[in-house]
């Protein structure tokens, strides 16, 4: 892939970021599948994807650790753009307009909308929770350093965080599918000006003025 924008498009994600995102996505899916296998008996068959129960148990914490580290890089990269602003709260308040696709009624959105920022927040908190509680319940190496009470709390915390993160990611995935062009953006790195205009108008204004103050595309 190339960073050179097509003439008719805006660069939304750099190649590094896209790579980071997809690494994250892969790690997350693996972590989620192996984790869910251990969470509910109905999903224990997921463990077959990893070579059986013991392999699932062995691999899950390492996958989780990888996911957390990759996410940390992503989070650092996206940190500044994901700070909540009053407009974002307004955006969130109007969630009905969001789901109905009435973007014209919403405040202008910058690089990320309120929902994306909320997702970011949930992921940061959730991943931190998973990371920390994961160590406590990592039986092979760490659990014996903690009292059983702490391990129990950590187990519950781990499950709750995972639940929150998974639900958030499910919404994230759907949202990406729903908003046509988003998948392209994270795969190819670019969006059309119309996409930017429609969904992230403030960002559109910012990039079009900053990158090419005089002319628009073409």
């Amino acid at each position, binding site marked *: 892939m190339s960073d050179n924008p097509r003439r008719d498009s805006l660069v939304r994600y750099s190649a590094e970021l896209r790579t980071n995102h997809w690494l994250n996505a892969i790690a997350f899916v693996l972590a989620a599948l192996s984790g869910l*296998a*251990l*969470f*509910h*008996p*109905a*999903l*224990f068959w997921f*463990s077959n994807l990893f070579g*059986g*129960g*013991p392999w*699932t*148990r*062995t691999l899950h914490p390492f996958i989780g650790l990888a996911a957390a580290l990759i996410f940390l890089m992503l989070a650092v990269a996206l940190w500044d753009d994901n700070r909540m602003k009053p407009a974002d709260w307004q955006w969130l308040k109007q969630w009905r307009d969001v*789901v*109905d*696709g009435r*973007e014209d009624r919403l405040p202008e959105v910058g690089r990320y909308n309120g929902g994306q920022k909320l997702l970011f927040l949930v992921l940061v908190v959730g991943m931190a929770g998973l990371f920390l509680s994961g160590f406590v*319940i990592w*039986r*092979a190496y760490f*659990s014996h350093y903690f009292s*059983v*009470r702490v*391990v*129990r*709390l950590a*187990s*519950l915390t781990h*499950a*709750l965080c995972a*639940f929150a993160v*998974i*639900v958030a990611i*499910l*919404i994230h995935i*759907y949202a990406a*599918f*729903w*908003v*046509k*062009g988003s998948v392209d953006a994270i795969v190819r790195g670019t969006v*059309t*000006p*119309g*996409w930017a*205009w*429609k*969904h992230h*108008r403030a960002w*559109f*204004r910012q990039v*079009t*003025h900053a990158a*090419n103050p005089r*002319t*628009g*595309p*073409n």
Partner: protein
Amino acid sequence: MPLQSLDIIRRSATTTPSPQVRGSYTGTVAKLIDVSKCIGCKACQVACMEWNDLRDEVGSNFGSYQNPADLSDQSWTLMRFAEYENPKGDLEWLIRKDGCMHCADPGCLKACPAPGAIVQYANGIVDFQEENCIGCGYCVTGCPFNIPRISKRDHKAYKCTLCSDRVAVGLEPACIKACPTGALVFGTKEDMKAHAAERVADLKSRGFDQADVYDPPGVGGTHVMYVLHHGDQPQLYAGLAMDPRISPTVKLWKGAAKPLALAAMAFTVLAGFFHFVRVGRNEVTPADEAAAEKGS
């Protein structure tokens, strides 16, 4: 005990019912540990290792008669020694055989994510089936008595089986067989409770007014019971749990949280699908492109 007593009535990480038809009309079994008769000779520890072909490390002395230092994958039972000065100023050396209590409502089984790694037989024995064990240690987290241990060698969970293999063919557990003083007895739970009641009466006649049977209702009763001189203070016996129950945290984690979370996740997916059905995709229109061109 006939073999059908080894029917599995409960199985870890399994949502459908286990065989129930045969029931357990012959009654459940129980081991009674009469602490007031126990001299801490450790014959039970040796018998356990011999029958189950286990050999713990030759460890160190760390300032106690208690050896090995703790339960392990190789030590499924352990004498714990506690010194207690009673209010009369007399010393008591309270020696308790520690090991799996075989709860009627086992926390380990509740916590276990691997189908069939932990089972409960119709006779009340809670058994680990190591070939199904994945080594996650959730049983350790779930146990209210701190009993299961994960082996460093094979990362499987181990604990007292109540010699389910012996019991299945009509023998008493190995520790019972070895106990020289009759501190360990084995039979139907009903008989053991009757025997325990006699022992409690004897202890009361010797001035232990609070003598009692330890069969904690918080875990539905146990198939290993104690006769304690100080039934009101089980914690004197090297920290025996006062009112053991499956921790509310574990209950939430392995109880309500499981179906609710799964349902919520499924709901999220469905919600997305129907949103798509009803609202359709959010697409960029030529008008938007035009506006963008204009807006830039």
